[in-house]
């Protein structure tokens, strides 16, 4: 009785200590999110006044957005840019992580390499964008200079005038900024795998590649899923690099991402708040659906694998009995 009373006495501190978080979240996050939803159904345009008039057809902005070719392009670009930087990024990060954690390989100075590979991640993305804009400068830029000296190209390439090279540049920068970070997460993941599994593989005479494919990769699955989802949510909001690298949109809107589209609608002169709000709500919903299905897809795969293994074990048991 007494104990319960003392517990109750202290419970209020739990509420009290969480209160600043809760109030700040309500005021600076939840309210703006709800407000964005409301604006997306309104006719709010022009100078920021905050007066909200609902449209007679509340979904007009959404319909406008779905019919907007530029917006559809921007969504497509965002996904394409994300995929084309994520796949090489996760592959390279996993391979490097496997090398750095391989005891037989015993890579020297791995700390030095890790430090250098991670470095671009800490530098301001805005600076990186301008930096690469200058590096890929044409007709005279350091990279054109370098490639011509090595004989890769005969004449200077105008990287940002061609949709493909412009996109490739954005994807490359994202890849370059993030593979080191993903690699470090992978290394931590591999170090977290039960060493007994590797010992068992070694006793069974597994080669390095077999161990990697049969032990390391399956065990890394949760970490890969974590990286996939966080990278996806980050990638869908890609803004700094495409915004500053190629004058906001690139040739034929090739590098226009959804976040840059939202920015252009709201802050690009016309102040189409309602349409920017509708675009960001659509982006939010797309994000939620895809991130959710990534989770379910992987969970499902796991469940199927478990079921298969169970069935196999049951069959083996039955045969053994027979």
């Amino acid at each position, binding site marked *: 009785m007494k104990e319960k009373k003392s517990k109750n006495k*202290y*419970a209020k*501190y*739990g*509420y*009290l200590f*969480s209160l*600043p*978080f809760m109030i*700040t979240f309500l005021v*600076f*996050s939840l*309210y*703006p999110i*709800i*407000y*964005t*939803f409301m604006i997306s159904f309104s006719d*709010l345009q022009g100078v*920021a006044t*905050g007066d909200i008039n609902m449209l007679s057809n509340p979904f007009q902005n959404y319909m406008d957005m779905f019919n907007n070719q530029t917006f559809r392009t921007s969504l497509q670009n965002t996904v394409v840019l994300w995929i084309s930087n994520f796949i090489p990024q996760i592959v390279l990060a996993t391979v490097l992580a496997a*090398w750095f954690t391989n005891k037989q*390989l015993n890579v020297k100075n791995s700390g030095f390499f*890790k430090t250098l*590979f*991670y470095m671009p991640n*800490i*530098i*301001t*993305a*805005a*600076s990186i964008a*301008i*930096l690469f804009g*200058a*590096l890929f*400068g044409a007709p*005279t830029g*350091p*990279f054109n*200079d370098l490639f011509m000296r090595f004989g890769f190209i005969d004449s200077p390439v105008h990287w940002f005038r061609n949709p493909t090279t412009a996109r490739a540049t954005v994807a490359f920068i994202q890849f370059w900024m993030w593979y080191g970070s993903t690699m*470090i*997460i992978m*290394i*931590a*993941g591999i170090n977290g795998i039960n060493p007994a599994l590797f010992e068992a593989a070694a006793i069974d005479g597994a080669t390095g590649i077999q161990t990697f494919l049969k032990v390391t990769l399956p065990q890394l699955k*949760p*970490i890969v899923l*974590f990286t996939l989802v966080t990278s996806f949510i980050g990638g869908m*909001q890609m*803004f700094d690099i495409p915004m*500053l690298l190629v*004058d906001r949109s690139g040739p034929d809107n090739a590098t226009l991402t959804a*976040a840059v589209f*939202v920015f252009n609608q709201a802050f690009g002169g016309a102040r189409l*708040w309602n349409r*920017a709000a509708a675009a*960001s*709500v659509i982006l*939010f919903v797309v994000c939620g659906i895809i991130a959710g299905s990534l989770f379910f897809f992987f969970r499902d795969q796991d469940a199927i694998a478990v079921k298969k293994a169970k069935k196999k074990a049951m069959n083996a048991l039955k045969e053994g009995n027979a």
Partner: protein
Amino acid sequence: MKKFKIGKFFLYLFLIVLSLLSVLPFLIMFVNATRSTPEIQQQALSFIPSTYLVNNWRHLMVGAFNPFVGFQNSFIISAGATILAVYFSSLTAYGIVAYDWKFKNAFFSLIMTILMIPGTIAIIGFFQFMWQIGLNNSFIPLIVPAIASPGVVFFMRQYLQATLSLEMVEAARIDGSGEFATFNKIVLPIMKPALATQAIFIMVGTWNQLFLPLVLLSRQQLWTMPIMVAQLQGNIYRTEFGAVWLGLALTVLPLFVVYALLSKYIIAGVALGGVKE
């Protein structure tokens, strides 16, 4: 055995190429910051510094780019946000770990959900809201929201669960220490390593952000470093290559210094963030 050696040679070669890929862009940047525009136009790639640093500086300061103002503003914002995020996230995490209250689990699930929400969704409503209460062109909307940092709360909660002994809290109670004083005087010092790791990431993350400061701060005296960088695209610098390289170098330099001093802790922190699943 020999095959292994050749394989190893290519492995190191590959690692060295990747290292060069990390270093080369910055090396070119620092060298070109000292070269004149005609020199750069003649030969954009060079590893020999020239003598035009001061001259580039003069050209750089003609336009809107001001590294001192940018540095100062970025520092105020990121220091403020870091202190608030670290302190209040620890307090929230302590509230979850140390006390039993009815909505504790629901509250923690809420924090995990917030963690997954992409920030872009709120930006239009946030901007309109700040405009109405006259907080555009103010640092408040860039600093105060850091009080609610779900990722930091998550990290701090994990750390407290591993390190906090409730007996110690109980002992402090018997000694007559108030709950708030216990947190400040006993719990916070225990959390020092976690505070330091998180502080680095919040500081750098806030320093680097572009979207929100760019739309909120229209007055030049308030511009942050990333906004300053964006100015290097402006017409005034179109023909001044040397000045642009120097401006870039100046914005990158503070982060290089931080990384040179703290890279060990930063890399350890990234690893910790990854295994939280």
